[in-house]
């Protein structure tokens, strides 16, 4: 092109100018090019590793070294490439549910709360949960339901069903192994964790799954999962396995609660009975003692009375024996004089009237023991 311009330029001066301009353009171009080259060189030969990560460097695809956090150099232009692996970050996998939003008002994606989840929130999960994209939210929710159910529904050793939801927290302990030994490592964690949890829940009773065995199950699951992941050389360290919830199936739950209630009712009933027992028996003991004391009182009273009466009689007798005749008459008359004024009507009848028998009951001569008068 330039040649053509030069050929076509008739004027030597013009031609010279053109050539000179061309040289300048070339100079600037070279400079720019080398600058660009330099920048690329620099840019492709330095890298930073964030504090939570380690850098794994490969030269032509082959692993060469691992670098700590900080600023590093590598061979440029794709000769060496670096993959940063977040070894210090604790990562989490959830089973039977998913966290939609974490924080103070955490929101979860679970079968029971599925109605509350909006279409938008659900769409964010389509990829993560590996769902078939679907425009109908209801169909999408149905998919989520099936997926979550396949995770949390478990068979227990006594052939019952338990709903088990749990999380696994893990860290990458060996970034090289993590990158180069296993494809889809997070899926491997998921698969292995599910298999392990299922095996453990399947070997125990429903009670062990939902109440008494929970802590053992957690630690057993952790150990087994670690063994399995080590056998895969996955470079993964299991930090913790935690059961979030572990329940009998929704429909059976009331029956389980009923058992607890019945147990409490039983206790309550027994307590109630014991309370009554403890209330009434001591009272009865008290009352019994009262009865006995009363009897004792009666006994003392009776004996004392008797003794008193007898003493009185003996005293009187003593005086009486000194002058029986006169005392006897005096006593009789004293009594009569005391008695007779109190009687309103006094009737005196002769023997004939008396013998009619009608008045016999009034006969003063009759003795108390029914003795005959003389």
């Amino acid at each position, binding site marked *: 092109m330039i040649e053509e311009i030069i050929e076509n330029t008739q004027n030597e001066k013009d031609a010279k100018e053109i050539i000179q301009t061309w040289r300048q353009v070339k100079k600037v171009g070279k400079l720019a090019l080398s600058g660009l080259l330099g920048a690329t060189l620099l840019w492709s030969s330095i890298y930073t590793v964030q504090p939570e990560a380690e850098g794994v460097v490969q030269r032509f*695809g082959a692993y060469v070294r691992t670098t700590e956090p900080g600023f590093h150099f590598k061979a440029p232009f794709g000769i060496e490439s670096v993959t940063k692996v977040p070894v210090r970050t604790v990562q989490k996998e959830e089973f039977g549910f998913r966290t939609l939003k974490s924080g103070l008002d955490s929101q979860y994606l679970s079968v029971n709360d599925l109605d509350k989840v909006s279409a938008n929130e659900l769409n964010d999960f389509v990829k993560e949960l590996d769902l078939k994209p679907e425009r109908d939210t209801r169909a999408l929710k149905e998919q989520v339901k099936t997926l979550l159910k396949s995770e949390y529904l478990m068979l227990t*050793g006594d052939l019952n069903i338990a709903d088990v939801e749990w999380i696994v927290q893990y860290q990458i302990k060996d970034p090289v192994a993590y990158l180069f030994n296993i494809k889809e490592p997070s899926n491997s964690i998921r698969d292995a964790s599910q298999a392990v949890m299922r095996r453990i829940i*399947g*070997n125990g009773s429903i009670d062990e799954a939902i109440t008494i065995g929970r802590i053992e199950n957690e630690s057993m699951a952790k150990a087994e999962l670690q063994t*399995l992941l080590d056998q895969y050389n996955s470079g993964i360290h299991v930090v913790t396995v935690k059961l979030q919830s572990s329940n009998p199936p929704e429909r059976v739950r009331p029956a389980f609660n009923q058992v607890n209630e019945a147990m409490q009712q039983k206790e309550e009933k027994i307590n109630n009975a014991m309370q009554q027992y403890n209330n009434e028996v001591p009272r009865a003991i008290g009352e019994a003692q009262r009865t006995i004391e009363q009897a004792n009182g009666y006994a003392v009273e009776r004996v004392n009375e008797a003794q008193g009466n007898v003493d009185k009689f003996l005293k009187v007798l003593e005086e*009486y024996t000194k002058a029986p005749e006169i005392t006897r008459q005096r006593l*009789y008359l004293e009594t009569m004089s005391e008695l007779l004024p109190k009687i309103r009507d006094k009737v005196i009848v002769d023997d004939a009237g008396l013998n009619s028998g009608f008045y016999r009951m009034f006969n003063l001569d009759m003795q108390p023991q029914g003795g005959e008068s003389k």
Partner: protein
Amino acid sequence: MSEEQTNKLQEYKPRGLRKPLIKTALMTLGLITGLSSVYVVDQTQQAVVTQLGRPVKVITNPVTENQLAELKSTYESKGVVVEEGPGLRFKLPFFQTVKKYERRLLRWNGLPEEIPTKDKKYIWMDLTARWYIADPLKFLETVGTSEQAQARLDDTIDSAVRNAITSRDLLEIVRTDNRPMQVTEEELRETTNVGQIYEGRTEIVKEITMISKEACKQYGIGIHEEGVLIKGNIYVESVKKTVEDRMIAERSRIAEKYRSEGQGEYERIMGKKEREIKRISSEAYRTAKTVEGIADAEALRIYADGFSQDPEFYRFVRTLELYKNSLDGSKLIIGINNPLLNLLDGENSPNNE
């Protein structure tokens, strides 16, 4: 324009513009040849080099220890070079082509399948397996691609699973060993009596692994020893309903038992209470009556002792007292011969016998 001018101008011609076509062509050719004679095997890859369709080199990156030795013994006699290690490698340009394969553990994920057990319980089985390309050359010849491999694994493992499950009772798939199960309440003990297992889950998984492994060998596919995982085993919906009904019935029965036990215990304690109260009060009554009896007897004795000193006088005094207490305010009819009136005759005194 003069001749001289033209020559001068010629000198100014940029160098790169001289013989441009040939130069560019040569450079391009060189570059292509260069690129065609090097290749990169990533740390995650293995590769097979073929020369006009005939395999000449296997570059492996062994997953298991003896994989390299096995490959060497299989192929070196056939003139195929077996080498280990990723990185930059050279080959003959154009004549040799490279096919790269994954070397990492790969995931096979089966579709959940409804399978009846030997005791005719229908369950959904969902398995997954870890596999790897053990022999890249054989893999290239028999399978070709990863997708193809998935299909082969589907066939192989699915049939192994189906055979293993249909020939066992459900319990064998659920339990691992015969460890006695724990219960919260002894009353629940009977619900754990579901029978003994003879093999158990681990054994069955091992069997599936062995069979699949053998079957996959011909494809150059290896299956990890611990690679087969039962990811899901749940009752089909209809069985689930029945099981839930049974669980409800079981628990209701236990709840009922607790309730009636509570009532029974209540009644027992109430009975004990009443017996205790009756015993206490009757004992007290007995004691009281005995005490009273003894006292009465004592009183009688005292009276007897005292009054027997002069029974006649006693009778006299008591009679007077009786009169005093019983005769008042009423009418008194007295016979003319009554001793009270004797004094009226002047004959007798009342104490005359």
